[in-house]
């Protein structure tokens, strides 16, 4: 989550769900919390019962809107305009929390002279390279303080790293994501103007940047009335400040956009100006959609990260451990200890084989050198470059956009391993997919060998999930899995064991990393299940005495400590599985610190030093949370302080201080190089230091704010199987948004197969307004066909006033279609797959796709069957001026296939 990471230093929710009960106003935007997180929504209900205002900002009127105080039906894809309007309102009316902003943010920092704002370049920032569609971020940097009071141990090395950071191939790899725990590195702390008057101060830049986001402009772009905007503005500002706090809640309604990270940045700026970060009832709650999606980035199975948001080594940047650590060595903030975290990780993985002499086996790590994210890999599969693929509890042919392209990828593998509970569509693509029906795929042409390996359920294995507020909770095992069903832990451990046995005795240096790997875990039971607790303990880390460390401050860079994921260090403190703690909530205070364990250091509200004023006193009695106890000489309060416990509020870093010692006693954002929340991001966000409103890649509306229509750095994956609908196209005249329903789960493998859930939402449907139904002749309960440049799908129609067309000021009417994405052909509840309709365009920061907004046509009746479907869609492409989407055998390039290449036959 670079949006949060670049703003505050960590990419996780800043608060916790229960704390919403303390909010005076809750804005749910980019989230349908009541439907997608119903049990978490109890805390919103509780706040409301206590008198809090609840606002739902969403294009659709949902079950969340139904019990909100106010629903704001903005046009799909215009949240930055809305939030930008709120920022302007706050700045213009001087409603920001002044003491907080001056002390805790980079408002006073000066930006270098080379910076040119998007105001002056019609929607672009300085440093744009139109050839590569990328920014060189050098001109966005701070003007450094003189003389520097803090800095790198190795200024030359750090400068070299900064230079390489701008290399296009490095930029492609989403290094900003490494700000998941530790903000983006900066060269030095900035020069400041505490009066905020300097024209190059962040505060003045911010004012100029958002000046055009007037209530009228918001109304025009978002398609709402200025008075509705002003109502939200009043509620939010009246409920922020010393005495009151407002919380913002978002989920994939923000991330799944071509400017997704900037949506979150905009909210971060607003919440920071209002003084709502680090305080009870405030914050930005990122609601994750899967049981351990936070855990899956913390302990990542992501190509560009190592555990704890350490970046995966890059071939152009990180030749050795020194280079790897050069950008952080000695710098202010907790990234200053990067070498200790990395060395400890290498020790955890390679044990005695990791020595100071061999750079702690740093070279054992493979290197990345570009974007190797999932969608790129699918493209490589279609080109025949990937031999084998593991799908582990994931159903991409349904859950990911452009199912057809995904299926073509799978059809060109040598082998595929699917680990799941049910026979999901990604395992049966070779015999049952829509392309079998059209003739684009056939079992006889598909050489992919498929292994379906049955998996254990959550009840049949033990381990931890990290839920949405960073809390690790241990699950005890209830029963043994049936037959061949095994945990993924079992599968990977024994696969590794077999591979190591096969290669035993090998002298090939390429095999050393595998053979030297620490792969010796206690095994339990008849199945020889590896001990999840032993692995959790390895993740926690051990000290020189072999005992579990109590936290990452104990980690060393000399090889005497080992730690599998530094931010999780402490989860096994005192040799106790802290994630398994289950002291009942009713026996604890409101923070309930003794239930599970939260990273970092079991802190539940992040940056909670900011809940006290610079002197360490609570901002108000009503919002008292963590504060300085002068007598005890330490920070105290309801939560564990997210601060060094005994660092005085008046601590001033001495010259030459490094790492955490360079963070002042009044700097709550301890993971940032300057200790401040970033209103302006001089680094860490590749598409601009400030958010700007761009229209989605597939929009039917012209950008009213700038000449620049869409995000200039948007990432595209061109090919016949991923055609884009042109913006402003008459052929694809309607906006489509996708979402979940309470009754189903993502791609449906865990819900469409269950009777009780299937009967509650038994069929794929789309939601349209009565106006669109009339315009296109659609009938409630009957079929409609939706068409894009990718394919056509059919769905039952639900006509509802909850979907609202929008008339813009120039008279243009924007019709919006709602489309839940749970379905496909398998299971009890079936239908076409919504994601087949979508193309893949990506946020350049995160490589996350713009699922939330696309375009399509809709017409009554069922879609064509068989090969007719191909011609039908091709006709649309031709009319829209889109290149052909016809493909050759198994989806490969049609020309090559005709020439006899690329065919496996």
């Amino acid at each position, binding site marked *: 989550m670079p949006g949060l990471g670049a703003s505050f230093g960590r990419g996780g929710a800043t608060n916790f769900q229960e704390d919403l009960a303390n909010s005076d106003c809750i804005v749910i935007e980019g989230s349908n919390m009541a439907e997608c*997180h119903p049990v978490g929504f109890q805390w919103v209900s509780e706040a409301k019962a206590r008198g809090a205002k609840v606002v739902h900002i969403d294009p659709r009127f949902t079950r969340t809107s139904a019990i909100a105080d106010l629903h704001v039906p903005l046009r799909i894809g215009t949240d930055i305009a809305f939030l930008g309007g709120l920022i302007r309102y706050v700045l213009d009316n001087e409603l920001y929390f002044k003491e907080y902003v001056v002390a805790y943010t980079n408002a006073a920092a000066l930006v270098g002279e080379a910076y040119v704002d998007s105001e002056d370049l019609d929607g672009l920032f300085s440093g744009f390279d139109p050839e590569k569609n990328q920014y060189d971020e050098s001109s966005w940097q701070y003007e450094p303080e003189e003389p520097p009071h803090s800095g790198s141990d190795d200024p030359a090395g750090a400068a070299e790293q900064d230079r390489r950071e701008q290399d296009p191939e490095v930029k492609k790899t989403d290094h900003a994501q490494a700000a998941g725990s530790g903000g983006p590195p900066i060269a030095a702390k900035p020069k400041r103007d505490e009066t905020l008057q300097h024209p190059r101060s962040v505060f003045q830049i911010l004012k100029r940047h958002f000046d055009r986001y007037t209530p009228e402009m918001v109304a025009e772009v978002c398609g709402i009335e200025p008075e509705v905007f002003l109502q939200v503005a009043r509620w939010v500002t009246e409920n922020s400040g010393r005495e009151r706090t407002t919380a913002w809640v978002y989920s994939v309604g923000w991330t799944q956009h071509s400017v997704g990270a900037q949506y979150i940045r905009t909210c971060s700026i607003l919440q920071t100006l209002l003084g709502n970060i680090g305080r009870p009832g405030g914050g930005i709650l990122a609601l994750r*959609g899967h049981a351990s999606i936070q855990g899956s980035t913390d302990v990542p199975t992501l190509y560009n990260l190592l555990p704890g948001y350490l970046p995966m080594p890059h071939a152009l940047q990180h030749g050795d451990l020194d280079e790897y650590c050069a950008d952080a060595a000695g710098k202010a903030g907790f990234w200053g200890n990067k070498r200790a975290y990395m060395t400890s990780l290498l020790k955890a993985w390679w044990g005695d084989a990791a020595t100071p002499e061999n750079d702690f086996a740093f070279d054992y790590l493979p290197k990345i050198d570009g974007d190797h994210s999932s969608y790129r890999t699918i493209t490589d599969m279609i080109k025949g470059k*990937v031999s084998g693929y593991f799908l582990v509890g994931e159903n991409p042919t349904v859950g990911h956009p452009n199912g057809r392209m995904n299926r073509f990828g799978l059809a060109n593998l040598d082998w595929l391993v699917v680990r799941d509970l049910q026979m999901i569509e990604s395992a049966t693509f070779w015999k049952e997919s829509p392309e079998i029906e059209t003739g684009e795929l056939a079992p006889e042409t598909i050489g992919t060998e498929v292994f379906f390996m049955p998996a254990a359920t*959550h009840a049949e294995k033990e381990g931890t999930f990290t839920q949405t507020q960073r809390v690790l909770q241990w699950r*005890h095992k209830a*029963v043994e899995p049936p037959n061949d069903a095994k945990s993924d832990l079992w599968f990977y451990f024994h696969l590794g064991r077999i591979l190591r046995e096969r290669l035993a005795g090998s002298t090939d240096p390429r095999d050393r990393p595998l053979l030297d790997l620490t792969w010796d875990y206690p095994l339990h039971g008849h199945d020889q299940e590896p001990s999840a607790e032993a692995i959790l303990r390895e993740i926690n880390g051990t000290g020189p005495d072999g005992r579990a460390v109590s936290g990452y401050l104990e980690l060393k860079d000399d090889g005497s400590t080992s730690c599998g994921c530094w931010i999780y260090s402490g989860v096994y403190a005192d040799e106790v599985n802290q994630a398994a703690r289950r*002291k009942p909530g009713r026996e604890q205070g409101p923070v309930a610190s003794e239930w599970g364990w939260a990273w970092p250091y079991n802190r539940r509200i992040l940056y909670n030093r900011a809940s006290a004023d610079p002197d360490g006193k609570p901002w108000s009695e009503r919002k008292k949370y963590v504060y300085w106890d002068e007598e005890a000489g330490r920070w105290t309060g309801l939560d564990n302080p997210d601060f060094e416990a005994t660092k005085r509020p008046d601590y001033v870093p001495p010259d030459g201080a490094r790492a955490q010692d360079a963070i002042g006693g009044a700097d709550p954002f301890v993971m940032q190089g300057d200790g401040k929340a970033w209103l302006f991001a001089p680094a860490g966000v590749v598409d601009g230091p400030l958010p700007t409103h761009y229209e989605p890649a597939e929009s039917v509306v012209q950008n009213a704010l700038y000449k620049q229509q869409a995000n200039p750095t948007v990432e595209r994956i061109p090919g016949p199987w991923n055609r884009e609908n042109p913006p402003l196209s008459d052929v694809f005249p309607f906006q489509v948004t996708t979402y979940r329903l309470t009754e189903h789960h993502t791609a449906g493998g865990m819900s469409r197969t269950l009777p009780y859930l299937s009967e509650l939402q038994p069929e794929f449907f789309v939601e349209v307004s009565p106006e669109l139904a009339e315009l296109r002749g659609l009938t409630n309960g009957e079929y409609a066909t939706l068409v894009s440049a990718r394919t056509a799908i059919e769905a039952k129609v639900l006509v509802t006033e909850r979907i609202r067309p929008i008339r813009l000021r120039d008279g243009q009417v924007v019709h919006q279609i709602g489309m839940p994405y749970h379905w496909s052909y398998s299971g009890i509840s079936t239908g076409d797959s919504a994601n087949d309709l979508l193309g893949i365009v990506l946020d350049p920061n995160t490589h996350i796709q713009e699922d939330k907004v696309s375009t399509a046509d809709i017409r009554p009746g069922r879609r064509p069957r068989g090969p007719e479907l191909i011609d039908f869609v091709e006709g649309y492409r031709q009319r829209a001026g889109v290149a052909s989407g016809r493909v050759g055998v198994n989806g490969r390039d049609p020309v090559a296939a005709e020439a006899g290449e690329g065919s496996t036959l």
Partner: protein
Amino acid sequence: MKTWLDAWPVFRQLTGPDPLGRGAAARSKATENVVSRTATADRVVQSVCPYCAVGCGQRIYVKDEQIVQIEGDPDSPISRGRLCPKGSASKQLVTSPTRVTTVKYRRPFGTEWEDLDLDTAMDMIADRVLQARRKGWQDENDGKRVNRTMGIASLGGATLDNEENYLMKKLYSALGAIQIENQARI
């Protein structure tokens, strides 16, 4: 005789305080013996719901090594014992009759699934991993050392445990596989 008569509702109705026969007198044998299956379970373990990321506590009741009930854990300060429809249905997730619990194999260009022994499948997968790793190996790319393989890719769901993700990343990295992704990016 008395016992038999007592068991006869009409007798109870005529002789007891429930002359209309709508309550105490109408209780059947099954009613008298009713007991909830949470009370008769052999054990209960604390778990966490596998659907969304709210992280609701679950209590799983087990009898004769079968799950007989999953419901909310009132001890959880996050969920306070409540569950949504998916969480409430999670026993079906475990006990679903359509769940596939044995290995299935589809050979290249095959038209049907075949059965395969688990150990054989593990060996076959290991063979293929080593082969793909070799086939896609790169010591260098564009003159820079990368020591990796482009032959193997992986995509995990975000319902994997932290410990599982950890072993996956560790093993893949040691193999030199880098195209390792997760639902978390989606």
